[in-house]
């Protein structure tokens, strides 16, 4: 008699089909959606990716960073530097930017991990500020006032404007799917078991022989890699960069945290649900300006106190649903 680990359940079988159909529909969006919708969708993909990465970092590895804008901005600036100063094709520059940011994150992590728990959060913010101030010192990219990608670089993506928008749209979709896929793969691996254990009880995980410090290190560097690539693509689409927009704590950390908390932290579906809610709220309340952010902050606080597992946590607890085949169930006997 053998014992197998079963990952899927009926809801995840349905979930995977829904995800696959959605992917095909979204990949075909250039044929059915207008330009404004494409841009909005690309933005949604970027936030799904950023929130999923932050969720992995804070929700699973317990590294509550409020400084992930450091890597969004770093990736964006590396892309601009590679494309404008080194003449590298911008689409090739995206993975190079991610890789370089990951390398830079290694010594940064060594320094930040000296700060325990709570103080790590603010330390990560200091690091983002350091990056922002350094970026405004780079005179080759016009320092504090920022710069735009030259026309030649933009044209090298694709010669027609429409094709350029399509290419960036598809890359944004592919990037979000790849990041989600990588996280699903990671969580199904033995590292995922360790990460889930760390999420549920760090002390317990350590006493079961998990090298918590090493796993946190690996997650931090991997998340830096992904975050920088997302940042690079966001600013490739924007074409214009400045230190204040690239290292914006509101855009790249506050929104991302609110999305994850409202959707459900510590669950892979949470950031997706949260992003949908976030954009629905934004489309209806955006005219309110500062009040909108105020409402968002209040909603996040209420969710954190009343339903700390977020919207998806409530649904999953109530119905036992999972979209991605992640759970581990022991099944007796051969298939």
């Amino acid at each position, binding site marked *: 008699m053998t014992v197998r680990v079963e990952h899927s359940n009926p809801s995840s079988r349905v979930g995977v089909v829904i995800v696959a159909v959605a992917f095909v529909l979204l990949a075909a969006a250039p044929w059915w959606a207008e330009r404004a919708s494409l841009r909005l969708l690309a933005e949604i993909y970027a936030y799904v990716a950023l929130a999923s990465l932050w969720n992995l970092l804070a929700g699973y590895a317990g590294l509550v960073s*409020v400084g992930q804008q450091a890597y969004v901005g770093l990736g964006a600036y590396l892309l601009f530097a590679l494309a404008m100063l080194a003449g590298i094709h911008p689409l090739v520059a995206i993975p190079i930017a991610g890789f370089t940011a990951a390398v830079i994150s290694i010594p940064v992590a060594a320094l930040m991990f000296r700060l325990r728990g709570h103080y790590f959060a603010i330390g990560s913010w200091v690091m983002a500020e350091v990056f922002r101030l350094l970026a405004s010192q780079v005179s080759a990219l016009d320092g504090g006032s920022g710069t735009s990608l030259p026309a030649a670089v933009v044209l090298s993506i694709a010669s027609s404007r429409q094709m350029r928008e399509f290419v960036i749209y598809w890359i944004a979709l592919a990037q979000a799917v790849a990041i989600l896929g990588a996280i699903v793969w990671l969580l199904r691996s033995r590292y995922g078991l360790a990460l889930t254990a760390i999420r549920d009880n760090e002390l317990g995980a350590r006493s079961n022989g998990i090298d918590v410090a090493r796993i946190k290190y690996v997650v931090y560097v991997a998340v830096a890699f992904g975050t920088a690539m997302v940042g690079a693509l966001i600013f490739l689409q924007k074409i214009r960069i400045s230190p204040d927009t690239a290292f914006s704590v509101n855009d790249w950390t506050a929104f991302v945290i609110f999305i994850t908390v409202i959707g459900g932290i510590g669950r892979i579906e949470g950031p997706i649900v949260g992003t949908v809610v976030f954009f629905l709220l934004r489309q209806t309340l955006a005219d309110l300006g500062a009040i909108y952010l105020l409402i968002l902050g209040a909603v996040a606080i209420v969710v954190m106190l009343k339903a700390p597992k977020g919207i998806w946590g409530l649904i999953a607890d109530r119905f036992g649903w999972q979209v991605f085949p992640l759970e581990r169930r022991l099944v007796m006997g051969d298939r």
Partner: protein
Amino acid sequence: MQWLNTILQGILLGGLYAMFAAGLSLIFGVMRLVNIAHGDLIVLAAYIALVTVQALGVNPLVALIIVVPAMAGIGYALQRGLLNRTLGDDLLPPLLVTFGLSVIIQNGLLELFTADSVKLNAGAIEIASIQLGGGLAVGTLPLLQFGLAVAVIGGLQWLFYRTALGRAFRATSDDQSVAQLMGLNNAHIFGLAMAISLAVVAVAGVLLAVRANFDPSIGPARLIFGFEAVIIGGLGSLWGTLVGGIILGVAQAIGAQLDPGWNLLAGHLAFLLVLALKPEGLFPKVQG
């Protein structure tokens, strides 16, 4: 002489940073809470002072009589009504709730007072200075600020180690459940700790508002300065925060002297250097 003057100004600025840090250090010491909204509360205090000054026509330093109790009251209510619910073994709730609070305060102030920067006018004292001879001079106001910072930290030190309330603070800091068994009401003690923290924040906010222009967005940078002073000085040491604040202030002043763009960067680098070489800070006391 130029450099001596720079360092002197840095030291005096450090007093203000120490005050940012003292409130942060106090509540972390008592209840292991890192308040991400700390900087925004400093700015809130500055705006309360602005409203007081405009409504009553008093000097900002006199407005302290109103701002300090107001902020202490807000602190107690905030702790009892909201923050006590976030305390526990999990790191996430306090961080995320205070982060949300930071965004709420920032945008609330933006909605009420717009993004225009304002400043409080303390009158003739602002331009008065004391000659130290040899071309050195210190402003009366910065000196007063530094004196206030030393007095506040001295007062906190006395409160912590010489009074019954301080004993209660240290008891809950050491072991919350045992403190409760000994008859302390932790929720109330935490409320008082936050009230005192925000009373210090009130003083810091008014001094900040008199010293320079402020607007709703500058809170996070104040949080970061206070945090850096805490880490440089060493967690849990009140006099350490003064040294940390001074080191930060001097580093920023020297950086600004070298190149205006290096002002803040030099302060951050001083912090990172301490973190790399002596991560427990210069005067460590408690383990976080």
